[in-house]
């Protein structure tokens, strides 16, 4: 091949330069990286949760591998919600390859974070050194960073790169495999330090050895585009999970758009405030009188503004941080001038409910939380949501479908997961056909489940 010599020359030249003149900075960088690695290594864990998934109408156990890092001497470990959230059991492998069981302390799907804990005796016994959070607000693009974790289950892996973007906005409305909406409250640190499946929950560390982010996402069809939840968010959320086991947030049911350079379209001289894009029917924002097209100028007496999308997560965070039930004065700009409104927030509550498998009937259901009523555009929170229907099972043969809401079982109302479970236990033993009354959008149906008439093959 004619091109080979040219490449060989280039490679040789590179080698030569490196050999002849190692810049002093490179040596410094090398020692800094080594120091970070040595300091951080005892805090890094490989997380192996066993979660229950309710998929296709069946409850299954699923094992996965993710990463995590120790944040205090009490044994608390930060990881991702999509790693350890809803785990039935979590094993972790420590830096010294010892495996221990961890306890799930708290989870927060909205930021995709979770905290687990290992016995604190082990922390002292093995002399594990917790990592501390750095200041992600003061990052600079181009700063060197290292991602630590277990990509493809390859434990104790370090990759290296730079902060590619410190304020990446990813569009709203992402959802987790378990159905919860996530990512509304933070922008993301983008890095080219390689992040692969299994890196989830691991720390992104700067040269000072501080955690500046929690590695969480990757981009598909791309090389070296990974995203980390900033330390500013992770620190607050982890703190709440450690102390309270949960993060409580206020909810208003409003979505915003950044104003860009659209001020003239809304009758303003200069862009200020944020554009109200959508108001959820039945939500506190609607009760307050907010309307799509309003320009929100101040919230609780604080001026707000968002000219660019990157500023939106902060606004959602501000609403979330409002004490639940507070009466918040709003000032909005409309065509006919400025108007004062009062918003009374409610608690966001659980994004998604618990699940239950009605195995005899071949489907699984989910508790309907207040947020799900909005998410799925349900009439009310009564009943249970059909989450999955087992292929070929009795419910599938009766045409029960995912997304329908069961409101009656054998002619008795089921209002929530508990009453569904109770009704299931009471009726299943009879073994006969069971009539379900289900709602689906504006439709009502009867579904006849015939457990005896097995169309299924032997398991």
């Amino acid at each position, binding site marked *: 091949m004619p091109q080979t010599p040219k490449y060989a020359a280039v490679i040789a030249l590179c080698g030569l330069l490196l050999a002849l003149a190692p810049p002093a900075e490179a040596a410094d960088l090398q020692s800094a990286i080594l120091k970070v690695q040595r300091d951080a290594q005892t805090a890094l864990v490989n997380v192996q949760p066993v979660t229950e998934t309710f998929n296709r109408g069946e409850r299954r156990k699923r094992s996965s591998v993710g990463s995590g890092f120790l944040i205090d001497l009490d044994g608390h470990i930060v990881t*991702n919600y999509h790693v350890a959230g809803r785990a039935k059991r979590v094993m972790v492998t420590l830096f010294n390859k010892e495996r221990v069981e961890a306890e799930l302390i708290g989870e927060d799907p909205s930021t995709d974070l979770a905290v687990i804990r290992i016995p604190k005796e082990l922390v002292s016994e093995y002399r594990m050194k917790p990592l501390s959070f750095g200041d992600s607000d003061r990052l600079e693009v181009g700063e060197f960073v290292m991602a630590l974790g277990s990509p493809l289950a390859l434990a104790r892996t370090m990759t290296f790169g730079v902060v590619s973007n410190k304020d990446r906005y990813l569009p709203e409305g992402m959802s*987790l*495999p378990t159905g919860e909406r996530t990512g509304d409250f933070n922008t993301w640190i983008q890095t080219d330090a390689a992040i692969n*499946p299994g890196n989830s929950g691991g720390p992104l560390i700067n040269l000072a050895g501080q955690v500046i982010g929690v590695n969480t996402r990757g981009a598909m069809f791309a090389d070296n585009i990974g995203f980390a939840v900033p330390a500013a968010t992770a620190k607050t959320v982890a703190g709440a999970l450690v102390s309270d086991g949960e993060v409580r947030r206020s909810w208003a049911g409003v979505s915003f758009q950044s104003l860009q350079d*659209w001020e003239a379209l809304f009758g303003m001289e200069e862009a200020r405030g944020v554009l109200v894009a959508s108001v*959820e029917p039945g939500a506190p924002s609607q009760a307050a009188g907010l309307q799509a097209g309003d320009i929100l100028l101040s919230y609780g007496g604080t001026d707000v503004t968002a000219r660019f999308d990157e500023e939106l997560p902060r606004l959602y965070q501000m609403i979330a941080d409002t004490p639940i039930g507070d009466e918040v004065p709003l000032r909005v700009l409309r065509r006919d001038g400025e108007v004062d409104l009062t918003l009374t927030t409610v608690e966001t509550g659980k994004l998604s409910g618990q699940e239950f498998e009605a195995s005899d009937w071949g489907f699984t259901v989910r508790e309907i939380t207040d947020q799900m009523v909005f998410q799925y555009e349900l009439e009310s929170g009564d009943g249970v949501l059909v989450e999955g229907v087992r292929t070929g099972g009795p419910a599938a043969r009766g045409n029960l479908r995912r997304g329908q809401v069961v409101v009656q079982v054998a002619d008795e109302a089921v209002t929530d997961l508990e009453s569904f479970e109770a009704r299931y236990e009471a009726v299943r033993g009879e073994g006969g*056909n069971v009539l379900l009354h289900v709602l689906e959008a504006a439709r009502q149906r*009867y579904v006849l489940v015939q457990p005896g008439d097995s169309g299924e093959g032997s398991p």
Partner: protein
Amino acid sequence: MNRSAVALLLLPLLVACPAHAKKRGKTQTTPDFYAAASPTIATVTFSQEFVAGGSTQQTTSFTDGVVISPDGLVLIPGTVRFPQSGPGRLQSGTLPELTSFRLDFADGRQHEAEVVAFDTDLNLGLLRITDGDDDFPHVTFRDGYAAQVGDGLRSMTLYTEEYGRTPVYSPLAINALLSTPQEVWSLSGAGTNLLGAPLWDGKGKVVGVVAQVPMSPGAARQVRPQLSGAVGLSYDRFAGWLAEAQDLALTTAEAPEEEEEAGWLGIEFQALERPLAKHLGVSEGGGIFVTRVISGSPAAKAGIEPLDILVSLDGERIPVNQDSDLNKFIERVRAGKPGTVVRFGREARSGATDEVSVTLANSPKTELQAERRTNDDFEITVREITLGTLLAQRLPPETAGVIVDGVTGAGWAGLAGVGRGMIIQRINDYDVTDLDSFEAALAKVTEEQPEKVLFFMRFRRDTRFFVAEPDWTELDEQ
């Protein structure tokens, strides 16, 4: 919202899922598959009429379709509905009218078809063969397919006429899961030439189709449906729509002969199957089971309610025992002249029976019958909001506006982010309630030539603003 769709994935590493290891049933050999699948696929040729340069022109295009039921329902990609390219740009006044669908099978069979329904979110359409019997070779679907990276799938398309309509077998593999749950897949080896082609598993069941779908997992809840390239779309993702398409066909979407009146009740229903009749303690022998009553419809006015069981029509038993019998009932109702009073025998679970009289109305306009307007400057076509739109987007009957039917991606409206399926409710300060006010609003805006034009849009319950920045100098160049 970003214009570019970045598909993001969460990064837990799934280690093992023993449930997937269980395999049941026999794997079909490739020759067996080829033989079984070949007669189910057809080239769908459709003609479009449009006005260009003042004269009516006709163009013919084709796509792939697959027969999904013995009575000749055919699944096709929805893109055919809104072709943006053709000989010359669309001129004012008309959108291509889909005048006819012809199906050509590899074995030489040829059939005519009509539209049942389209879905702009899923980008799928359903046709019904109008000149066949009830014994079409068809595919069967498999639900609950848990896709995994590395799964091999089979697909099939037909070569065009010049090459003798030979079925072409394509082995494909899932190389990434693009959504959660795993219902949208990236496929290695699937180009847009496979658009509309079914995806079979190793046992001869169809688990999805090659489609164009919104890439962002949250797109369904967002105002802007992001369309991207050819991907695999799981049957689970569109099974609900497919079931509804038949329901909807009963209420609105069935395309009757042009300008012919058809009787309309305003209900959705399913067959009163024997086991259900027996369990409910009502008489067996046929009937329908009302699942939905459209508010304000003849059925609603007559007091028919969801869960009602209707067993007779004008004194005759309704001969519907399974969903495949439903056409008999639908045809009866449609044959009734608007204004005619029909009597239904209704049975209650208590055993009580009564009669309910309904005055048939005329069938509301379907999506295809809806009037359309095109604006060439903004390169956008809109249509009236039909009952089908309201039902599909779950909007109240009083919803005002026009629905975007087609938009050129790089046109003024397209660049602003305006997409198909969205409802335009205001343009700058001008309310848009119907086609006339839409035209008036754009005429005003074109006269005023502002730097920016604000579109207030609705999609389901979400609303959002989009801003177009027209290059008015283009108008002078024309």
